[in-house]
């Protein structure tokens, strides 16, 4: 009977290890939207489309996020790795395997916009829901651009 308990205990530890990998996965869904919309989005200088845009990103990497729109200042920030609290589950249940597996899959991290002196880059807001990251960016008008006119459709009778 004691052996059975030991086997069950060992199985539980093995199955419940790698907490963060099991709960969060090695990738995180990131949605980027902006005001105004239809802004070109680049991750590590790779064009990934126009806002709003979704991307499933690896948790074990950091990314340079850039948004570009004519007439607006180029927006730049980093998506950085932060500690994923699910990892603590390994320490609580003594999951040695989890402690090794979670960092290797990247599940020990969660992606967040970079903060400098605990402040996000101006114009940045974000929220998380069900592990997904939603970032909203307000683009700032580039004062070096001046409106010189406007083309209008002529209406013929």
């Amino acid at each position, binding site marked *: 009977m004691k052996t059975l308990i030991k086997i069950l205990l060992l199985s539980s530890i093995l199955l419940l290890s790698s907490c963060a990998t099991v709960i969060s996965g090695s990738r995180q869904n990131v949605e980027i939207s902006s005001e105004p919309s239809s802004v070109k989005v680049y991750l590590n200088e790779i064009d990934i489309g126009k806002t709003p845009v979704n991307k499933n990103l690896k948790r074990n990497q950091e990314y340079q996020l850039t948004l570009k729109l004519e007439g607006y200042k180029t927006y730049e920030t980093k998506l950085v790795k932060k500690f994923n609290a699910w990892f603590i589950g390994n320490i609580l249940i003594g999951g040695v395997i989890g402690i090794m597996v979670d*960092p290797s899959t990247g599940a020990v991290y969660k992606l967040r916009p970079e903060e400098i002196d605990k402040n996000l880059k101006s114009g940045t807001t974000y929220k998380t829901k069900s592990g997904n990251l939603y970032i909203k960016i307000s683009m700032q008008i580039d004062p070096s651009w001046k409106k010189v006119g406007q083309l209008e459709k002529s209406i013929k009778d």
Partner: protein
Amino acid sequence: MKLMTKILFLITIIGFTNCSPKLSTNFTNAQPKLSIDDKVAFLDIEHNLPENIIKVGKLRFQDSGFSTDCNFNSLLNKARIEARKNGANIVKIIDKKKPDIWSTCYRLKIELYRFNGDVSSLPQYKLKLD
């Protein structure tokens, strides 16, 4: 039990402190810094260097033992950051070891160059998002 806690703590510390690949740099002729708008070309082993270039320095990416962010595209992105900081617009891979039984990481030897021409016209490797 105390020993177990110590081991877990040690593994956790090691895991958090060594997840980046080891980067060795050697800049012999740094040039004025480049901006994010300046293009940087990635020349893989099979791509040839153009003529009239200035050698800026060397980079070497190795596995620190617990590296996780060490795939090919990620390392090249890090190399590009170093290149711009030191005024180089060509990242030339001179030696590439793929992940194998000894390491789950790419290991690269890179040379950085400054080219006073349009680097986007050079045959090059296009960076991808993994």
